[in-house]
């Protein structure tokens, strides 16, 4: 278990990493990355049972899949800070010949990544597959996945949701980054999601919400509750209410920073709000 203060410090450093990565190449997705920083920092450093080093097979450890691959900056930073690869490598984000592609991939062999994602809606099926293999292997560890809320507009998600409940895939926790925003605007304006609780429950899932998805203690409590509900015949869905762009005042309360990099002055302002804690890469 990690104390909240050290996790907070890690989140602040991850925010700096995200901002500096997208600024350097003037591309990438800071909004959703910042919104999920607390969640992924807590998941990787307090919740998941992980082995030392990286093995593609993920046997006898918890496994995470990022389905909304566009928030690659945050997963790259969290993986690097967790020791999967050197933090200096964050400097190569989106550059030619880098393992840190625009969207995560196994293709260049980046430790920590087990599936390519970016084209949305595929990660839940993949996570279910790994959860099924864990059951076949007698491996009692859990499978986690993260999805954007806008991503739920993809039909494959609901094929997967139906399968997971119908086949009692109960060693699996899917989290929805519920920031209610997507590229073109509010999800309610682009294509309303309706009640996600009602939808997932109707599909046969056990659903719980983390009302403040940018609060480390709330995330700890929520994920502990989610874990306690595994192994009971239902897949578990966590609705993680987050703020896109969290931690940078001018990136919050708007969808504008979904896929836009800050300029020099904006970067300076954003970094000033998040002082260096563990050392920049």
């Amino acid at each position, binding site marked *: 278990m990690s104390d909240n203060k050290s996790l907070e410090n890690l989140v602040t450093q991850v925010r700096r990493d995200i901002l500096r990565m997208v600024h350097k190449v003037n591309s990438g997705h800071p909004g959703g990355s910042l919104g999920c920083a607390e969640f992924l920092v807590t998941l990787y450093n307090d919740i998941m049972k992980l082995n030392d080093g990286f093995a*593609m*097979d*993920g*046997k006898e450890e918890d*496994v995470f*899949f990022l389905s909304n691959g566009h928030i690659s900056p945050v997963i790259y930073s969290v993986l690097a800070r967790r020791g999967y690869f050197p933090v200096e490598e964050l400097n190569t984000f989106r550059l030619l010949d880098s393992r840190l592609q625009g969207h995560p*991939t*196994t*293709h260049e062999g980046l430790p920590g990544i*087990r*599936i*390519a*994602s*970016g*084209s949305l*809606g*595929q*990660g*839940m*099926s*993949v*996570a*279910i*597959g*790994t*959860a*099924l*293999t*864990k059951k*076949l*292997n007698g*491996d009692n560890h859990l499978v986690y996945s993260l999805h954007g809320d806008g991503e739920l507009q993809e*039909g*494959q998600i609901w*094929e*997967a949701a*139906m*399968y997971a409940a*119908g*086949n009692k895939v109960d060693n699996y926790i899917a989290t929805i980054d519920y920031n209610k925003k997507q590229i073109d605007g509010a999800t309610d304006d682009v294509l309303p999601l309706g009640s996600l609780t009602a939808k997932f429950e109707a599909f046969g899932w056990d659903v719980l919400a983390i009302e403040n998805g940018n609060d480390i203690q709330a995330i700890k409590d929520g994920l502990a509750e989610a874990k306690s509900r595994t192994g009971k015949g239902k897949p578990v869905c966590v609705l993680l209410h987050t703020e896109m762009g969290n931690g940078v005042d001018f990136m919050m309360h708007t969808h504008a920073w979904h896929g836009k990099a800050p300029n020099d002055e904006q970067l300076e302002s954003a970094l000033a709000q998040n002082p260096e804690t563990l050392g920049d890469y």
Partner: protein
Amino acid sequence: MKKYTNTGNKDTRSGFGDGLTELGKTNENVVALCADLTGSLKMNAFKDNHPERFFQIGIAEANMIGIAAGMTIGGKIPFTGTFANFSTGRVYDQIRQSVAYSDKNVKICASHAGITLGEDGATHQILEDIGLMKMLPGMTVINTCDYNQTKAATLAIAEHHGPVYLRFGRPKVANFTPEDQKFEIGKAVQLTEGTDVTIVATGHLVWEALQAAETLEAAGISAEVINIHTIKPLDEEAILTSVGKTGCVVTAEEHNFLGGLGESVARTLALNTPAPQEFVATQDTFGESGTPAQLMEKYGLNAASIVKATKKVISRK
């Protein structure tokens, strides 16, 4: 010219099903996934023998491909089974990202390929799948010709690490491959020796090519028939050696000429020793309802078409 005997008509999909049954007994990592077509894919025996390793996904092919990709993480070897149309066109992006780009050890096994699916008509008769699959980096593409070869291929792909597309069909067709013939991925099978023309055929067209070669022999034309069961990686050496001898080639496949075996052969020749080529294939068209034999006749995919194409290609030498 060497003659081949049909030991009795059998469907290639049964070769897949029987191969899968055998794999179930010999390789505990093999798992099978099906999208509501267990009987059509002949997967019932595997399902009955190993219910814990059989996954009924329902009519949700995109989910099936994603689950298969995920199941490889932890060491399983998933074999997915559905019709060729739903195995490729319907799930292209899932295969592209979650399987091919992610280099997952998934075996995409596709029945009812091509026009010989018959009466169900063009919605189900995919004639573009070889092209779709061969364009994916890292994808191995196999199109078997008969029951014995399909069974052997099913066993072989379990031993090969990496994504594979295995294409076979619905109707009962001649079974002539020796039962004990080892299946070597990427290795052409030379069926007859000839000097006037090379006939490179795949899938159901291989038997048609053998029939054509007999007709041609009677007309004094010596045809070298090559069975290309693996379209990617292509056995370029076998093709170049043969065409180097005969000076011309006919390609024959149950697929659109765009994107098929013929184009792969044409590229090989263009890069090495250009030679006249004729394409026995569908001519950028959809199919329609009918019996397999009627459709093969109407769309020019039979022995008679190969004979005609051969005479034409020889005249172009």
